[in-house]
């Protein structure tokens, strides 16, 4: 087949490069969602660990007072 004129070939070339960029962007968006979930879990675990530490401290004080 003869070479396509620039205006027609341009659409195909742009399409191919846009597909590539869209795939990368979708991948990065999925990774961002994963990162957000990890951050949220980490925040909740940190809050849980802090609550547990302060609970243990309070229990220690109660034991000392009771004794």
């Amino acid at each position, binding site marked *: *087949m003869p*070479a*396509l004129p*620039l205006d*027609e*070939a*341009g659409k*195909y*070339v742009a*399409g*191919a*490069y846009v*597909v*590539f960029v869209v*795939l*990368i962007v979708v*991948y990065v968006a999925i*990774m961002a969602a*994963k*990162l957000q*979930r*990890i951050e*949220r*879990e*980490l925040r*909740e*675990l940190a809050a*849980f*660990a802090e609550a*547990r530490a302060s609970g*243990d401290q309070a229990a220690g004080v109660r034991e000392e007072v009771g004794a």
Partner: protein
Amino acid sequence: MYGKGLRQLSIATVAALAVSLSLVFFYAPLDADQGFIQKIFYLHVPLAIVALLGFIAGGVFAVAHLRSDEGRWDAYSYVSIHMSVIFGVAVLVTGSIWAKASWGHWWVWDEPTLVSFLIVFLMYATYYPFRYAIEDRDRQARYASVFAVTAGAFVPLNFMAVRLAESLVHPRVFATTGGGLPGSMMLTFLLSLTAIGLLWVTLVKFELTAKSASGQLKRLRRALDAPPAGGRPRVAPEVS
């Protein structure tokens, strides 16, 4: 551990992609036969080469996993194959666009290069259901490694078979006799290949870092769930 050097790698990847795209559109000459449509070559072929090398790398990491029984090699193998499957999707789509523009058809079934790549891609698409059909983690990793080694060995064999098929339809731009790329096109192609290779490595590292962080989080949850000495267990809140 996996995130080490990720920032520098990301910067290098973005720079390499910018340079290669500039060369593709402002430096490389127009192909005498195909004209502007040949610009897809600088994206499609590096993607295909990197995807196939990624599949082979997945097999090599799987061998390391089977020899050492270390979980990190299984992670490397899994992520290599995962990333190459994503790149494979890009190869098939960009190839179809190029085929439509060059040959007037989105897909040509009697072209060995296209069909063989599709076979390799579909073979690796079965990796996920195969892997996740097994519940036991150790068996899952072992069986997945065996799959990765077998499929990884098939990739170069498949490539050689296609080269031997001597098709007249698909262009052989790296042929040793006749044709071949002129210097400016070869330079652009090699830079594009480097940029796509760097992108693959960067995304693999991103994925490994995310997986590692997720794993560390599970370890932390298990440690917090464990009962304190002499106390009853307190379950950490589960986040969906």
